[in-house]
Structures are given as structure tokens and as C-alpha cells.
């Protein structure tokens, strides 16, 4: 099994609070590795460090063997890290196509091109159509984001990440706020994607997590308290105590 992402001994403190406490994780090709934990467990801080928004105090992050710990957000994205956000970061006044196209053009080379017109770039158009098709958004490609449903926006976010042709996806609560139908659609989408691109999935929806994930890591108070296949996690007494609130 090829290892795509490896996190080793990652640590981050805010004052006395250990937001990330010696976290080590791996993500292998072809799998969905879910990261769960109660609110305030440090999931957002951990994702922030992986994506490059937060500088860790210690530890390393490697992507396909290359150390990316010191890289900027943009450089990590270029290196193959695609992600979505809990709160949408799409440009609301622009269409789905325009939002996705930014990622596609970044993938297709330098953005310091001042003359050729993106609207007439057939290569870009094909790339955008391809990923919008992947997330079943082709029919709404030219609708401004502000007019799209919540579920549709989530799928456009995923499309943006896919347009990077990433080596892995980092999805931050993609099901949040989706209705039952939306959650099912998203679950189906992720299931289709995982053979192509491994996914590190942070999610609260346990049904989705247990349906999708090959491995689950449980984060409590900044530290990983358990890691393993869904069946193991389901029965792990420490997880049940700390996370599922049973004793």
C-alpha cells in the first residue's frame, strides 16, 4: 500500500492549551481515513496545520515522501493537496465554472499570463467540465454560487479541489448542513472518488463516516486516542468513554 500523506509528531499549543498533541497519522492510496472527535478536540487546528494556515510548533508533514511542513498554503495546493472548507469560501458573485476554473488554471500552469483569454481556452474548459461532471454540476455550471443550493455549493467545493488533480483530498465536514438527500449524494460521490484519490475526511456524521472510512482516527483534547478500522473503533472502550459518552 502506498503511503500518500504522513504526519509525524505534530504539535501546536496556544498558550497553555495543547490544541495538537503529538499527532501522527498516515493516509494511503485508495482509502478514506476519517478523523473524528468531539467539538473542541482540535480537528480544525490539525487541518489548519496540514493545509498550511497554521504553523506547527513541532512535527513534520510529508506528501508522497516530500516534506511540505514549511510550505505556504498555495505551495501545498500546488504540491497536490486539495481541500474543502467547513464554511464555504467560494466567490458568491461568480459562477460555479468561474470558481472551479481558478483551480483548473492553477493546475494548468502559471497564472502570470496576461494576454490569452480564459473564456476561450478550450483546454481549461474541458478540465472544468470534467470535474463539474464528476460532481454532477454540469447543468448548473453557469449559475452564480449565490443562487445555488447548499448541497450544490458543497459539490462545487469538491469540484474545485478535484480540479487541482490532487494527490489527496482534505475534506472538512463536507456533509455539514446537508439534508438527508444531500448527505447520501455526497456519500456516494466520495465513495466513487476514493479509488482515484485518497481522502482525509473530517466529519461529524457518523453514519457517513462508518459507511465510507477504511480507517478512523479519534482525536480528543488534541491527541489521537484510537486509530483503526471502523469495527475496532466502534468497540474501542476508550472511544466509547471519551467520545461517544458511554461508560
Amino acid at each position, binding site marked *: 500500500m502506498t503511503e500518500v500523506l504522513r504526519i509525524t509528531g505534530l504539535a501546536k499549543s496556544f498558550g497553555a492549551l495543547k490544541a495538537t498533541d503529538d499527532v501522527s497519522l498516515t493516509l494511503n492510496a485508495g482509502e478514506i481515513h476519517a478523523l473524528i472527535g468531539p467539538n473542541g478536540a482540535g480537528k480544525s487546528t490539525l487541518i489548519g496545520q496540514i*493545509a498550511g494556515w497554521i504553523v506547527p510548533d513541532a512535527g513534520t508533514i510529508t506528501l508522497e515522501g516530500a516534506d511540505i511542513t514549511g510550505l*505556504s*498554503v*498555495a*505551495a501545498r*495546493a*500546488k504540491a497536490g493537496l486539495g*481541500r474543502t*472548507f467547513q464554511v464555504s*469560501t*467560494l*466567490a*458568491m*458573485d*461568480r*459562477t460555479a465554472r*468561474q*470558481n472551479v*476554473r*481558478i*483551480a483548473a*488554471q*492553477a*493546475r494548468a500552469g*502559471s*497564472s*502570470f*499570463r*496576461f*494576454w*490569452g*483569454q*480564459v*473564456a476561450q*481556452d478550450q483546454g481549461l474548459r474541458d478540465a472544468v467540465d470534467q470535474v463539474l461532471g464528476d460532481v454532477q454540476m454540469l447543468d448548473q455550471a*453557469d449559475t452564480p454560487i449565490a443562487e445555488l443550493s447548499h448541497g450544490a455549493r458543497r459539490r462545487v467545493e469538491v469540484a*474545485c*479541489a478535484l*480540479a*487541482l488533480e490532487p494527490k489527496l483530498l482534505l475534506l472538512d465536514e463536507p456533509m455539514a448542513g446537508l439534508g438527508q438527500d444531500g448527505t447520501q449524494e455526497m456519500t456516494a460521490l466520495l465513495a466513487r472518488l476514493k479509488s482515484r484519490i485518497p481522502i482525509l475526511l473530517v466529519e461529524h456524521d457518523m453514519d457517513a463516516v462508518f459507511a465510507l472510512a477504511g480507517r478512523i482516527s479519534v482525536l480528543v483534547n488534541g491527541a489521537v486516542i484510537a486509530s483503526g478500522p471502523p469495527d475496532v473503533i466502534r468497540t474501542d472502550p476508550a472511544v466509547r468513554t471519551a467520545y461517544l459518552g458511554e461508560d
Partner: protein
Amino acid sequence: MRGREGWINGALAAALLIVPLALHLAGEVYYVNLASRVVIVALAAVGLNLALGYGGMVSFGHAAFFGIGGYVAGISAHHAILGTSFLGLSTTTEMPLIWLISVLLAGVVALAIGAISLRTKGVYFIMITLAFAQMLYYFAISFPAYGGEDGLPIYVRNTFPGLNTFDPITFYGICVVALFACLFLTARIMGSRFGAALDMAHLSETRLATAGIAPFNIRLTAFVISAMMTALAGALFADLNGFVSPSMMSWHRSGEIMVIVILGGVGRLWGPVAGAIAFVLLETFLGGLTERWGLFLGLILLGTVLFARGGIMGLIAGKARHD
């Protein structure tokens, strides 16, 4: 460029071509020069519009670049007429060369200012760009070699190969070609990959960074291009007026360029043109009517901000389209 805005842009372009020509044929030299003024001020605002309108960078210091362009033209002409040299280099009175130097110098200065300023955001950015412009302004006032506050006269308008730049309508032609070229360039840039990135840097910086494009570099580049266009306007302005002075760099001037962009419509390609026409005509004719023109100009501006948010273009062409 479709719909009503397209028609308005076409009308503005036609007006810029036809009206001055008609004035010229009617022998109204003053109004031809006034038209040159409109076009040059519009060009300065087209430059700022790239940073402010499209890139969301509220620069309160663009007068610095306007002044740099002006001083390059002024200093070149000054040395050329005296037959002296600038730091051992002989200077030129050829406009194309002056423009090139203006634009490059402004680009270098903008690179330095932008590299520091763009580390900040929001009000900090507004204020630090203002501070850099004030720095250059005070330098220009107190540096005696080029006239200090008195400024520097350009006795003989700089030349353009094959053209008689003294002829008002010819000079207008040069200005309007420069304006159209920069408008075309802006349209081209905003349709390009770089433009798409700049647009996203403005609307969702996070989205841009997540796509793998560093927003800082995009912004800095746009800031530099924007400064270069404004510097070109400054060089033309100096030749139009026949002098340069530190007032070209004052914070009022920065405010005026900003006002023109907003009056016309932020982030609309032809907005600065509409804004410049309105502003220069207001300034000229209110100034002729009453000493209290500042009061009325203020009221008109206030009304625009409060009640006509899209500026003139927003008022007559509706909401901007982005496709």
C-alpha cells in the same frame, strides 16, 4: 461586453473620438485641451481601477505614481533645455522614451511600496499607501534641485516622432490613444488567467490560495501594473500643463483619483472614463460658477456614495456582469 453597458461604453468611446474633433474644427482650443485633461485624468483612474476596482486594493497613494510620471517628464525636459545631464546621463525629450522611463520607474517604486504595504490589509493598507505617498510628497517639496514646491516648468512640450505635439488636437490624439490602449490592456488582462486570479484574490483570497496560487504575488503584480498606468498619465499630465509640481502627489490628488474611480463605477472597465468626464466638468464649471464649489462637489460626492452605489455606470447600466 454585452447589454446596456456595452452600448454605454461604445457611446463614451465615440464621444471621446468625435466631440474633441468637432471642438477642434470649431476652433475651440481651450475645450480641446480640456478634453485632453479629461482623458489623462481618466487614464490615471483606469490605472487605479485595476488595483482598487478589480483587485480590491484601496490605494490612497496613487498620486505618488502620478507624480513620478510627471517628474520624469519634467526632469527630462528640464535637463534637455538646459543642456545638462541627469547623474551623467543625457536626457531625452522624446515622449515614447519618457513614457518608458516613467512606467519603469513607477513600477520599481510600486514594487517596493507594494511589497511592504500588501503585507497589511484593510485600513492599514489604505493608510500605509497614504503614508508612502506623503513621504514622496514631502521629499518633492523640500528637495531643492527640481524646484521644490515651486515645481518645474516644461518650457517646450516633449516631442513625439512624426507628430507635432504642440498642436492641441494632435496631443489629444496621443492621449486618447494611450487611454484606449490602457483600456484595451485592462480588458485583456481581466479576461486572462492573471485577471481571473486577481478577481479571486479580491473576492476570496482563501479560495485562491487553496487553488495553489499565492495571492500576494498576484496582488503585487496588479499593484505594479496599476501604478505604471497611473505614471503614464502623470507624464502626459505634465506635458499638458507644461509644468510639474509636488501638488501632483498630494493626498488630495490621491483622493481625487479615487473619487473618479468611484464616481464612475468601481471595477467597471469604462467607469473611470465616465467618472473623469463628470469630475473634470464639475470641477471646471462649478469653479467658474461659484467660489463655494468645494461645498457642492462634496454634496454631489456624498450623494453618490450614499445613494448611487454603483456610480454613474451603475446608475445607467445596472449591475455589473462578470461573464
